């Protein structure tokens, strides 16, 4: 037993942990300056709360290493049903916050089921796709996988939480890619889907087609194309985000010196728009360093995936990479104006403890794949 723990500790990927720790620390620094106004207003020390959650996350990461996730049998179905029930519960018992019914209250505990659902989906999909062993070449083979992932996706969409739904789509595509799905079929689906959505919105705007989007969701897409359409309301965030990032310049204005940040030109700058704060105060150099850390972390994850002892491990890691990449692309992309605005946080940096814990568990899963990379170890 002791030797097992020793082996586990020895096998933990510390390079990955160092990258993770550096990103977390960078996050605390930025969060501190981004949350000054909100801290004063609400009397909450966001950095302390975030750090506490991170510490809890590390504990969870280590706890997660006691068992080989790929050897957990018969848990997939239970987990899949649990996930869907959770998402279903949100629809009935959910509490509204920020326009979606995303929250569930259990006594004093309040959390967003969407966050654990992301992890659960990755796990279930990895099990499901691993069982298929790369048999994902024909439409007939791919359809069940899409149905499998589509059920929770629709439940999320029903909340309505478009952002998380897009995360699910990213996870689905990312994992199908890694699992050996037909490239041109995936590309066709992705490209066709995107094209269809654009056509649909265009049709809605020009010919009044029915569109299942709230006004604010539609407006976010409209001002993404043309921020000057409504610069005071919907276009405001798009414009201000770019001004904030752009005014940082090469070296930034210095920690706590960002005038845009201090003046409150951006809403939710300690969560959704935290990258803008990074951009204004630490400039291109600061952004570059943080993005490089993310990049290194993700490459390290893919390396671990490559060394996995089985397809499930590789898929599990690919799912986590998909999750993180999409969050980063979406969050940074909206700060620099190449993605429409959605409420997607930057992993490990944005304030939000549900998301942080979920992401830490995801890291734990990646490390788990690394720890148990040798099939003959135990």
């Amino acid at each position, binding site marked *: 037993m002791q030797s097992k723990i020793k082996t586990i500790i020895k096998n933990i990927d510390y390079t990955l942990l160092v990258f993770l720790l550096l990103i977390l620390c960078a996050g605390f620094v930025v969060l501190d300056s981004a949350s000054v106004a909100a801290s004063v207003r609400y009397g909450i020390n966001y950095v302390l709360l975030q750090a506490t959650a991170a510490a809890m996350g590390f504990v969870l990461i280590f706890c997660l290493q006691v068992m080989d996730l*790929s*050897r957990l049998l018969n848990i997939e179905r239970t987990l899949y049903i649990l996930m869907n029930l959770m998402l279903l519960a949100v629809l009935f018992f959910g509490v509204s916050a920020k326009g979606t019914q995303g929250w569930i209250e259990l006594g004093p505990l309040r959390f967003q089921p969407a966050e654990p659902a992301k992890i659960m989906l990755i796990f279930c999909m990895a099990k499901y796709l*691993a069982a298929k*062993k*790369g048999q994902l070449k024909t439409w007939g083979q791919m359809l069940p996988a899409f149905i499998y992932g589509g059920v929770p996706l629709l439940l999320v969409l029903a909340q309505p939480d478009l952002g998380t739904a897009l995360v699910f789509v990213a996870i689905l595509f*990312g994992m199908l*890619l*890694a*699992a*050996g799905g037909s490239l041109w079929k995936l590309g066709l689906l992705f490209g066709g889907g995107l094209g269809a959505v654009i056509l649909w919105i265009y049709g809605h705007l020009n010919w009044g087609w029915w569109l299942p989007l709230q006004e604010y969701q539609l407006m976010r897409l409209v001002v993404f194309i043309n921020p000057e359409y409504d*610069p*005071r309301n919907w276009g405001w965030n798009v414009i*201000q985000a*770019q*001004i*904030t*990032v*752009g*005014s*940082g*310049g*090469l070296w930034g204005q210095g920690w706590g010196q960002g*005038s*845009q940040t*201090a*003046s*409150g*030109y951006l809403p939710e700058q300690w969560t959704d728009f935290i990258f803008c704060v990074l*951009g204004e105060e630490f*400039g*291109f150099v600061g*952004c*570059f360093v943080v*993005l490089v850390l*993310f*990049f290194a972390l*993700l*490459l390290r994850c*893919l390396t671990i*995936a*490559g060394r996995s*002892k*089985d*397809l*499930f491990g*590789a898929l599990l890691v*690919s799912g986590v*990479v998909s999750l993180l*990449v999409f969050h*980063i*692309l979406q969050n*940074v*992309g909206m700060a*620099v*104006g*190449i993605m429409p605005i959605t409420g997607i946080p930057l992993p490990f940096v944005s304030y939000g403890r549900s998301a942080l814990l979920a992401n830490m568990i995801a890291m734990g899963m990646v490390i788990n794949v690394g720890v148990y990379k040798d*099939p*003959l170890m135990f």
Partner: protein
Amino acid sequence: MSIGSPLWEESKERKQTRKRLILYGALVTAIFFVLVSRLFWLQVMQEEIFLNKAISQSTRWITEKASRGEIMDHRGNVLVSNRPVYNLTLNYLGLKDQDITQVVEGLVSVLGDPDITVEAVQDSIDAQASRLYEPIVIKRDIPLETVIRLEERRWQLPGILIETSPQRYYPYGGLMGHILGYVHPIKEEIDQAGYENHGLGDLVGKTGIEKSYEFDLKGTNGYREVTVNARNHPLQEVSNLPSVSGNSLQLTVDLELQKVLEENFDSVLAAVAENYPKAQAGAAIVLDVNTGGVLASVSRPIMYPGDFNGNPLTQAQADYYFNQQPAALYNRAIQGSYVPGSTFKPITGMAALASGNITPETRITCTGSYWFKPYIKCTGVHGSLNYYQAMAKSCNVYFQEAARRAGIGMIGKIGHEFNMDAKTGLDLPFEGAGLLPSLNWQTIEFGRRSDVINKDIDKQLADLAATYQPLISQAATEQEKKSLERELRSKVNTLEARRRERLNADTIWREADTFNTGIGQGYNQYTIIELAAYTATIANGGTYYTPYVVDKIYNPDGSLKYQHEPESRKVDVEQWILDVTKEALTTVTRPGGTAYSAFAGLAPGIGGGAKTGTAQPGRVGYSKNKDFDGLFICFAPAENPQIAFACVMEHGHSGSGSAGRVAKAVLEYYFSEKPQEELPEEPAAQPGEGPGEQQVNAE
């Protein structure tokens, strides 16, 4: 179960999965490359643009309106000061058209003020269309509750600013309103020379001292550069250029004397109006005879500068000030021209003496009416009168004969010496000039009239020719042609006769005109300030002082910037004539004189000179031989006069019964035992100048 089987290590699937993972790695790299490229473009290539945007959206220039200079009377009593008020302005910068509509609608609903409608605000915006970079003042002097209501919703109303600015305050209401003038938003002045430093929304002097001393009073606006947050709340001040308030003015006017003048003018006007309801207007001026300084001046109907002061007028106010008769805005003391009546007689008298055709002792017999056409009646049958007696009785016969002997040329010359044909040049805007029917005036006026008549007749002749020429040339028979030519000739002759008739009637000075002029009727028309200045000139022995209102100008730090030096010139009239006339005027104030009642209450030894006037203006609204303006000019004391006074009461019926009663109150106040504070630096009033001064006693 193949999961975790050793076979995986070598399996085809593993190789394929690794390929896919490398592909995925490439995809991730591409995504990061895109993000970093975009960041590089935003932060390194475009930094300046975004930095400028960040700075400009967070920097505001706030104008700090300068306080206008204060206006004081000559003892330092503040007549016009300032108080801070809240103004509601719309800052157009940074707003788009669709926002403006939204903001204006929001503003209108928050204010709930019936005067402020979407259309009204839009009008203000349109009015400033060429200068939208300046804040648009929507409403001035909004109450504190409204300020609070607006502040609570400020974030919903981008561009709406509440600024405090100093606004004119008039502690004495309408006292001296016409002299002080009023301020109102700048309009056509903005393009005029001197107003380069004014901005739209600034209040500028429109009348009175406020206008003539605008550039002294205005001061220099200050600016504060502040950074603001997204909700326009100021964060910190970047730079501050304080405003400099305007220079303050010290007038020659005495507040207490002014009060006495206005109160008594009002009470006399009210008393006169009981008998003559048309009596509603008039004016009076008190001058310092030794400087030309205006000691007090009133014009009625009253003007309250506070009614303007940047606020839009109600229809009733606009009617009161501009449209009705008599319109209140008009300063009748300097803008109105009045037929002087008998107050002109001293000029006639001096002209007659100067002509040498009359001496003070020359006697003329009044039999109740003049013996030349149009046999103008006198006020009584005065019998044989010398100059002094004629003045005391205001005998129309005497002064018609005096005018005849002097000739209109000499009357014009003397009148010109007393500046009766020009503006006095006092430091107030819109001053009118009198009409002195001198030979010079006749040449110009009759020339102008001849032109009009000749043009009219010539045109009719041309028309006639144009009508007849074709008829004549087309005449069928010689007979018909002759008949037409005869007809034309007869019509031409008629027109030529009419030309002669009209030229004769309108462009020739007649003896009767001279007689009318001699008694202050006919063409004569003068402003009250002209009458006062000429009275003062007789009183001080022949020095014409240009009247003025502003005595001193102080810089904002209290140092003296300007001290008025009286401008004067000696009139070209022989000293003995002036002295004799001054003496003649004193007889008017003695028992039996027409102005006796005005001076009866004064302490013995003070005395003075005066002349009453009852004029038939023949203007619109006056019935002939029924409606008269009452006029009064006087100076006092008799020895070393200090003040000169001129007054008109429209429809006052008689000079002594209306304007004379105002004079009485002013004189009694001025020469009453009152606590004579300070007045230290003023040198003692100078006696009449020149060594040629001599005492001429009345017979």
